[in-house]
């Protein structure tokens, strides 16, 4: 999963490797004694010798070297420097950049916003994707047409999605904003922090629902028909069958998606924030990854920006380890 960290060092660069790296990394993190004996289901799949997997990984590792490892090392170095943007003067300042960061109230409020944003985005994305996956599995006519339509937002560039939503919800000229105002809601994301936050949560989720949806549709299809049919014969309705049988059986997918959604929310929502709110009003939607960009590329405070990327990297690493170590144990992998 640290593959996605590349966005922390280099905003806007596609990480891309998360899915492919899932297995080796899981082995790395989960090499505990009880795993070896009780490997079952998906966990049983592995390579019998070491050369082939290395070759298969090589291209990905090369890309990671260029877009993740080299930038990370540079970020790590810069985090301990005070430097002129043109590189004319560089001073080593020890932990000063970090001290400054942790002293700054602005940084902590950004962390708080990020927490709220990622959780809200995760809940919204996953629940809507589940609902849609459930519904589209029960549609008989035109199922593929519905699926195509549902997948379309994924093809839209984040910046375009952001601008579009910013315009639709613009309190002066946006049609949706006018509708909301017509309903008596004093909608104004330019002044109200919560409205702005809701807007970026919506924009980020809208872009990511399709991704969740594909995985959930596939997972729901792989739920054994025989079990569903026997439940049907026992008189269980579609909702009961979904909640009692399908949902528990797709938990590995849900778990995977929760991790991916957190990584997405933390590292890949920069473009959406930039296009929708630019971190405003008054920094209310300036999430951590946006602050890395703002401090590095707009205000040219390279030391602070680098220190922030290092903090994000560490955060991502901790999050990934914690999730795989503690959450995964409760997940049923024997699908």
């Amino acid at each position: 999963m640290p593959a996605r960290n590349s966005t922390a060092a280099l905003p806007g660069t596609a990480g891309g490797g998360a899915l492919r790296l899932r297995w080796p990394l899981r082995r790395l993190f989960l090499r505990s004694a009880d795993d070896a004996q009780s490997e079952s289901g998906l966990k049983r799949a592995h390579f019998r010798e070491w050369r082939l997997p290395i070759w298969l990984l090589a291209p990905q590792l090369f890309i990671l070297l260029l877009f993740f490892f080299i930038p990370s090392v540079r970020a790590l170095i810069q985090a301990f420097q005070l430097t002129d943007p043109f590189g004319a003067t560089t001073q080593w300042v020890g932990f000063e950049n970090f001290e400054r960061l942790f002293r700054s109230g602005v940084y902590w409020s950004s962390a708080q916003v990020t927490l709220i944003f990622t959780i809200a985005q995760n809940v919204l994305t996953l629940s809507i994707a589940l609902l849609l996956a459930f519904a589209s599995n029960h549609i008989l006519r035109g199922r593929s047409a519905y699926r195509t339509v549902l997948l379309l937002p994924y093809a839209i560039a984040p910046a375009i999605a952001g601008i579009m939503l910013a315009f639709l919800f613009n309190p002066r000229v946006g049609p949706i904003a006018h509708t909301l105002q017509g309903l008596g809601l004093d909608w104004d994301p330019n002044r109200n922090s919560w409205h702005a936050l809701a807007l970026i949560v919506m924009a980020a989720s809208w872009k990511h629902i399709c991704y969740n949806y594909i995985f959930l549709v596939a997972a729901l299809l792989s739920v054994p028909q025989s079990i569903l049919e026997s439940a049907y014969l026992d008189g269980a309705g579609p909702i009961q069958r979904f909640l009692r049988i399908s949902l528990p059986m797709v938990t590995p997918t849900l778990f995977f998606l929760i991790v991916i959604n957190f990584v997405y929310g933390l590292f890949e929502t920069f473009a959406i924030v930039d296009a929708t709110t630019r971190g405003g009003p008054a920094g209310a939607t300036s999430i951590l990854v946006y602050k890395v960009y703002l401090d590095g590329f707009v205000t040219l405070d390279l030391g602070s920006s680098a220190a922030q990327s290092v903090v994000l990297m560490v955060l991502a690493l901790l999050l990934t380890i914690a999730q795989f170590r503690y959450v995964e144990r409760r997940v049923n992998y024997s699908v």
Partner: protein
Amino acid sequence: MRSFYGALAGAGAMLLAGLSPARAATEIEFWHAMSGALGERVEELVKKFNDSQKEYVVKAIGKGTYDEVLNGTIAAYRAKRQPEIVQSNERSFLTMVNSGAIVPTSDLMAQEGHPIDASQFIAPVVSYYAIDGKLQAMPFNSSTPILFYNRDHFKAAGFDKPGATWQELEPQLDAIKAKGVSKCAMVLPGDYEWSFLENYSAVNDIPYATKRNGMDGLDTSYVFNKGKLVDQVERMKRLVSSGVMQLAGQGIIPIQLFTSGECSTIIASTASHAAVVAAAKFDWSAAELPYEQGVTPKNSVIGGAALWTLKGHSPEKYKAVAAFYDFLAKTDTQVWWHQATGYVPVTTAAYEAAKAQGYYQKNPTREIAVLQLMRGTPSDNSLGFRIGNSNQINVAIMEEVSAAFLGKKPVQQALDDAVARGNEALRRYEQLNAGKK
């Protein structure tokens, strides 16, 4: 297609080289931040220069916003692929001067045999871009904020024109809203830190930062958290919270809300003339910035950008750069640029020439910015700003000030926080550039 013509031109040039002693023209790159109509004007300007002689070719390349151009330049400079000329905004002055990456314009011009006299430029431009009388950058697009207003709206509300002071203007804006003439009596510009705070302090002769706003050294500190500047932010807060002043927000540009006829006034750069002329379908006009009652208003300060020459190129390239700057400083070029874009003429001669043409009689609003910039004798508070890390501090100040007028923080506290954040960045700049100007 372009490469096809390029190849054709190349072949033609080779043929010519074979036939005549003429050498191939020296090509230099000019990275700029002008987009839309202004971007087209830059293309025209460069074409004029390229057509005026055969030795040099300037290639203008739009690289996005000022921030993006600066970022691109830094990345290019670090990779040793920098262009010869780059346009950078007034706020980045110290960043550029202390970058170690530039050739001061005065030195370049003297060396190439086109000595340039700083005194031919108008005073507010010289005080910004010259150190000890030596120009560091080539003044290019200079502007200053003025008040654009919708005359139809003012008439409908029973006013002839906007009042000269804030004390007269505020009730007018309130009336426009109260009488239902417009739901948006004023729209907040995106660069309000420049127009509502920095220029406000210059015009009303209030210190913004110590050491003559940084002119006297890097050990300057912000002091805008007291007196009239607090009242000014209180005023912005009142205008925003009563709905008299609206925020454009993301997805639209503030000036569009003025040109579409939705908002009655905007305080914006005089360069907005280009947009207003192109889009406003109503009777509009402009006026000088409002000031405080009882104050003799001082000059406002410039915004916009200048052209910086980057180090690391061959002597022929610098000859081309000097020839291009020489062309830019010509009165004809300046008059054309001023009239085509709305920016102010940067030389005194160009202003006099435009006046002699009768241009301001036909286009009175085009003279407002010049008159306002040249008004009275500059005081220590209206010379201009020479602040390190200014781009960075600007973001922090805008964040705090908007927290104030959105009611998230008391105004005084927001300004204290802005000053504290600003001063921290100033001290860091001082630490990094110890011993420099």
